[in-house]
């Protein structure tokens, strides 16, 4: 693997020529898409950027901190509906409010995580997600009842640039976060709670921070999704949405930033390819999770890393 000689080097952004070349290629593609004159790809690109923000957040919680949460649909719904109700504010502010609302909910859900571990936490967060859905389905003053809530929708090209830019900001923020003290504390908690506590990591603060940050991301994801759709119904935020996020995290690669983006691209593009057959999408998703976990647990990001190392060291391996 990579030889890292100092802490300074470890912290450097995108070290290695291949990584830099791939990064530049990715940015070039993102800039080229709107000029390709293909509206379908602009829509897909927007959706990938939106989804990637949510996947980044959940990967922070699940991949880096090791807290198995099934409550994403709840945070997504809180973000989306908050955005819909405060959309008279200027949009950056509305986005911030939506994210913060989800983050507050995240801290509230995070409190049980201080006592619950593994499967128990998974069930508790699952219960939270469903409770939010039930609340929205029953409270028509919140969700607009059967007609739903309308959200003002800017033109598609504007959305594309806005969301891709936001994804870039969130990805950079995540890189900084995980190479800071907080990110290291996240991973220490994941690897062993007791050991992390023994070396002075504040378990309570770290876990709550992980829940707050990841819910903030998911709330922003929900808000952008609301803006993208222009219309909200409680049915959008069911268990299927949670499963899709899990597929994205697994296929892309746990605890990996580039993996989150690959995973988001996978879950957006795969249904586009199989658009005609509705049944094929879950089969493809399920099959790819199983194949990834059995053969390449690092996901696409792990596979890419292995390929890169093999390429750089060729023929000496």
């Amino acid at each position, binding site marked *: 693997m990579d030889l890292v000689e100092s802490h300074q080097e470890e912290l450097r952004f995108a070290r290695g020529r291949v990584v830099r070349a791939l990064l530049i290629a990715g940015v070039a593609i993102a800039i080229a898409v709107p000029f390709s004159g293909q509206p379908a790809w602009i829509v897909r690109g927007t959706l990938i950027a939106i989804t990637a923000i949510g996947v980044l957040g959940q990967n922070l919680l*699940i991949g880096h901190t*090791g807290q*198995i949460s099934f409550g994403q649909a709840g945070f997504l719904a809180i973000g989306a509906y908050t955005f819909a109700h405060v959309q008279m504010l200027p949009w950056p502010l509305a986005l911030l409010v939506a994210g913060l609302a989800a983050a507050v909910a995240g801290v509230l859900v995070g409190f*049980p995580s201080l*006592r*619950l*571990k*593994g*499967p*128990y936490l*998974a*069930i*508790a967060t*699952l*219960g*939270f997600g*469903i*409770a939010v859905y*039930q*609340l929205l389905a*029953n409270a028509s003053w919140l969700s607009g009842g059967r007609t739903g809530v309308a959200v003002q929708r800017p033109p598609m090209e504007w959305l594309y640039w806005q969301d891709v830019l936001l994804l870039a900001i969130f990805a950079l923020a995540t890189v900084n976060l995980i190479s800071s003290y907080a990110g290291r504390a996240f991973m220490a908690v994941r690897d*062993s709670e*007791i*050991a992390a506590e023994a070396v002075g990591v504040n378990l309570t603060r770290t876990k709550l921070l992980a829940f707050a940050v990841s819910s903030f991301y998911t709330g922003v994801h929900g808000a952008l999704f609301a803006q993208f759709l222009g219309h909200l119904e409680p049915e959008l935020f069911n*268990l299927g949405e949670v*499963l899709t996020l*899990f*597929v994205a995290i*697994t296929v892309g690669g*746990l605890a990996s930033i580039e993996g989150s983006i690959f995973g988001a691209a996978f879950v957006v593009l795969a249904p586009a390819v199989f658009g005609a*057959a*509705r*049944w*094929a*999408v*879950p*089969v*493809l*998703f*399920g*099959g*790819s*999770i*199983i194949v990834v*976990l*059995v053969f390449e*647990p690092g996901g696409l990001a792990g596979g890419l890393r292995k390929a890169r190392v093999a390429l750089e060291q060729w023929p000496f391996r």
Partner: protein
Amino acid sequence: MALPLMDRFLQYAVAGLSAGSLYALVALGIVLIYKSTKVLNFAHGDVATLGTFAAFALLSRDHSFWIAFPAALVTGALASVLFYFGALAPAQRKGATLLGQVILTIGLALIVQGLVVYTFGTEPDRMPFPLSDSESRKVGPVYVSELALGTLGAALAACVAVYVVVQRTRLGLAMRAVSENLMAAQTLGIPTRRVLGFAWATASALGVVAGLFLAPALLLDPFFMLDPFLKGFAASVLGGLGSLPGAVAGGLLLGVAESLAGAYAGIEFKKTLAFLVILAVLLVRPEGLLGKPFKERV
């Protein structure tokens, strides 16, 4: 209805018991898998759906119930045994984390769901059944439908069967040994993989039984087991994820509580109750009613 107050209460309690026995069956399967493999099986509902649809396919080709129902149980059991040996065991051998194993079961759930939608479509169907939902018998002061009686009977039979197998046979002894300490069981020459495979098969068959008795009460569509599956989850948490009697008690309690809540507190409350129960139990007593408190070793 001019039922006296007490009879009305009993009527709802009995309806709750019948729904609760379905939750108990689902919860029993979830706990059986959790105790033996330490995995939360998110595919439990979907495998049960698959089995129920297998019965439906045979019944609509004019086979009798005596062929269709055993075939349904075998289909469900086969699907999860295949999954266990084909995906879960190899992943465990490679040292998959708890999260990885849970995600694997999500993968199975998605595949089964897609295949059921592909084969049977999403249109709801009516499931033929030997017991009627509308014919009711008078038992003491309350009326019980034939289907509800059948459900209670089937759940009771399944619970007794599980008890006998786990507590009174050599295979059950092996199952308890594997659940207690996998490594030690392996060292003592117990074929742990086969025992675990059997546990998965039994658990899925229990889920299919629940599916078969639930389907005639509502319409059969590819997602009909999602709700009872989540309720079964709630029931297993209520009783304690590591306790088989707890699963049964949790299921029955949840069923009765739901039915009474629906009768006296409103229908919205009935729907949310299970998830409030989950949150309350996990906050107050995470190990459940009959579970043992956990300890952690470094």
